[in-house]
């Protein structure tokens, strides 16, 4: 019965939902996640629009449900390196990189992290916080198993001495494991665009020009500043502006698409800023406001009417730094005028792009990508079917969508995989 299983690649909300539905229907699932923990981008968010639910609070139980499910095998720090076969019987090779910690022994006490003298920027916190060389990416990481960053580790031996479980393995070797599955679901999500190349916004040049994902970490109570929205110099932010469509809907780098979520996440971030500090002034500079989802227009109304968030139509041409770390945004609300807005922090709603490594994975899977490197659909009205039979796609890596849409898409891909595993009524041609 080994082949009556499904491989899910990517442990974000979309992948977890797919895995969970399949497992609940009695199908065995192997969930392969590249990082140390499942959760994906949603784990990095503070709250979620349009309900302002705390992201990690509602996500953590889902992560645990997935990890603890008897039908789900979660392989973290792992990547798919090869597949063979076809729909109904794929043979998959998975590279399990080393954690340098014995997964069965570690109980997540964190003693190793406390004694480790290294200080390394934590990617999960968008490099805004330092972690040690022995670490988990965030408190609620699932599984709660530490890892050593052997690229940076100087092998001082302290963690090995302190670990009461004798779990440190400096010489652990990576492993290749094989799994036989009937169907595959890809759900590898997105990366935020690095806006350094778009020089007009001054990212990298001015300290207080940051990206939206960095802002999510800043305003999160469990984040690097304990939820305080402060400038790099430690001062409280009083006037803050969001700039929409940074690198998106932009033909310069062939990224004409709309990312679908940033108008709303900017709205959310402005509301949260106001909740933290009602005195703060918040501005959102946008081109078209995309408020199309369930409850979104009502959310925007609340932002404007109840919180006093100011929406300004106009695309900034340039951002300049002045003395006292004041940032001047030059924008044109109409074609013949240029206006200036002075703020002390700028948040860039950067384009969201397919995850790093998507091309290599598509190559391994034998599936096609579209012009912007999202997974291509064989039939545009069959929203989870890739160009290869038996391989389905879910979540943001197929096209921009928000969390509930990713979850529905994850379940949708699960049903397609169930058709293969339970029904057996699949068509080899598609």
């Amino acid at each position, binding site marked *: 019965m080994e082949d009556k299983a499904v491989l899910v690649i990517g442990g974000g909300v979309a992948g977890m939902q797919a895995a969970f539905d399949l497992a609940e229907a009695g199908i065995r699932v192997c969930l392969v996640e590249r990082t140390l923990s499942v959760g994906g981008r949603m784990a990095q968010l503070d709250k979620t629009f349009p309900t302002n639910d705390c992201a990690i609070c509602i996500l953590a139980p889902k992560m645990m449900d997935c990890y603890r499910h008897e039908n789900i095998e979660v392989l973290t720090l792992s990547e798919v390196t090869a597949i063979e076969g076809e729909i109904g019987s794929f043979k998959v090779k998975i590279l399990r990189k080393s954690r340098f910690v014995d997964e069965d022994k570690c109980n997540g006490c964190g003693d190793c992290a406390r004694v480790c003298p290294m200080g390394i920027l934590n990617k999960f916190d968008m490099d805004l916080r330092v972690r040690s060389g022995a670490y988990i990416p965030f408190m609620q990481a699932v599984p709660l198993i530490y890892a050593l960053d052997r690229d940076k580790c100087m092998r001082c031996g302290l963690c090995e001495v302190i670990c009461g479980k004798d779990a440190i393995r400096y010489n652990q070797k990576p492993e290749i494991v094989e799994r036989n599955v009937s169907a595959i679901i890809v759900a590898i999500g997105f990366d935020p665009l690095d806006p350094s190349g778009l020089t007009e916004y001054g990212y990298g040049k001015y300290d207080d020009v940051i990206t939206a994902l960095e802002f999510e970490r800043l305003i999160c109570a469990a984040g690097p500043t304990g939820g305080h929205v402060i400038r790099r110099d430690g001062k409280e932010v009083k006037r803050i502006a969001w700039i929409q469509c940074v690198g998106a809907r932009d033909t310069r780098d062939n990224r004409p698409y709309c990312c*679908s979520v940033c108008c709303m996440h900017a709205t959310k971030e402005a509301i949260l800023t106001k909740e933290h500090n009602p005195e703060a002034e918040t501005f959102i500079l946008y081109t078209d406001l995309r408020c199309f989802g369930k*409850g979104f227009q009502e959310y925007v109304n609340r932002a404007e009417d109840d919180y006093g968030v100011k929406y300004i139509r106009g695309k900034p041409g340039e951002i300049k730094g002045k003395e006292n770390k004041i940032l001047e945004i030059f924008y044109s609300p109409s074609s013949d005028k240029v206006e200036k807005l002075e703020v002390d922090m700028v948040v860039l709603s950067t384009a969201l792009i397919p995850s790093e490594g998507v091309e290599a994975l598509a190559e391994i899977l034998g599936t096609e990508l579209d012009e912007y490197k999202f997974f291509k659909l064989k039939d545009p009205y069959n929203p989870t079917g890739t160009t290869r039979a038996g391989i389905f796609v879910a979540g943001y890596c197929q096209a921009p969508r928000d969390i509930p849409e990713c979850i529905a898409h994850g379940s949708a891909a699960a049903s397609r995989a169930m058709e293969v595993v339970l029904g057996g009524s699949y068509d080899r041609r598609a």
Partner: protein
Amino acid sequence: MTEELRIGVFICHCGINIGGVVDVPAVVEYASTLENVVYAERNLYTCSSEGLEAIKSAIHEHELNRVVVASCTPRTHEPLFRATCKEAGLNPYLFEFVNIRDQCSWVHMHEPEFATEKAKDLVRMGVAKAARLEPLEELTSDVIPSAVVIGAGISGMTAALSIAKNGFYVHLIEKGSEMGGLLRRLYKLYPTEELAKEFLEQRIKAVEEHERVELHLSSSIKDVEGYVGKFKVILDENGVEKSIDVGDIIVATGAKELEPEGLYEYDGEKVITQLQLEEKLRREDLNRNGIENVVMIQCAGARGEVVKYCSKICCMNAIKNAKLIKEANPDINVFIAHNELQAYGEEYELYYRDAKKAGVRFLRFPLEKRPKVRKSDGKLVVDVFHERLLMDIPLEADLVVLSTPLVQNPDAEKLSKMLKVPLGQDRFFFEAHVKLRPVDFATDGIFLCGTAQGPKDIEESISQGYAAASRATIPLAKGYVSSEAIISSVDEAICVGCGICESVCPYGAVEVVETEEGRRAKVTGVKCKGCGTCGSSCIKRAIKMQHYTDDQLIAQERTAFVTEREVVS
């Protein structure tokens, strides 16, 4: 109680999360002085495998028959600790959770002494309740391995076909005489511009041909009884009453276009809706000869005019129809007066650009100053307030097309009452959780998809159709459902059959039935979610909530107001 009570208490440091504020050793010491407590210890992380092992070995070693854990929150951790008790052979409901993170170390972060005192109080209360806990069993019940899908639009057809392909029998119920829903009335579809008719033909055929789909056309639902696993759906099929037994139900009843009565001089002839335009295009009876100018007005009735919400599809739909008209007759001027433009996602932004290239003109108005339609010398004129010029631009129009939002079907209310599932403020069916459960209802065994849940395009309706199929397949494939152990029960000797409980239960789990003694309330175990609403509203106190019995709660409250000294001595 005959058996000797032996309570074990486990206090968690949660790293520094609790231990950094609450004096955990002091709480442990205090706990060990409480009545019936035979063992108390602290753990760095009670939920780590080490902590769980500690609970299990203490259960064996100290013959514990009640376990209390004081830690983070039952929302995430109660299932884990219950499972641990079970693994050690203890009934999982002989476990009591005390929340000293959210309720002590977090909210009293800056007052560690008070936090510690409160932790002691809560532990004392937890122990008092634990002493009165009773073992409970979860119920399981069989599932009839088939489903009902209500509504044969594209989302319902998708859901039905996928469940059938998953191996289960499906009844697809449609009130109209044909499948296809709203798409039957459309001309071409964005973004592919294929004919709606052709799009539907192949899909209808696939549903018709599947051996496990039973189609019920011209059928309406008369009544629904039962619960997940065992629903009975009563149909009126072409005047004949039928009864169908199924395991679960999907609602895919779609939506309709708002009729803009009294808005923008709407008359159904010169001022029409997008759907009316589609029908004209489909039947090829749009008299293009007399038309020089077409003006489309976006958000007609939406975003604060009649309904509050944005209807998601009408911008793209206007762009599609504008582009089709322009491409067929480049001499016709087509204007779209809009506020925001919902050309979201990957393809729609490009499609919008294509329409601009084709020569469709876009004019933006502020939402506070929507366009006005007036008649001048027998001609229609649309005044669009220009955002930048700050003045009205009069546009002559031979045809005005109103992009009105999708709204809920009028008969949805009746269906929502029959199924006991809610409608939201926007009148669309309201899912269990806006973020995490987009196609589930709060009631087990009932799911939703498509525009019944809110406006959406075809692709997303199909995506949700598959999603609902996945969710509905789960109980069918499992073959059983298990329900809560914490449910209510009625003491028939006390109940007077007044029916208050029946009227307040949000899950329809209590019903008043005739018995030999007269009318009495009856609880259906698998439907009950243990919310306790019935119990708190029964004036006769005939309802007992398991695990939250009066006896247990009163004991807990009494000890809350006793000072530490009184308890110890």
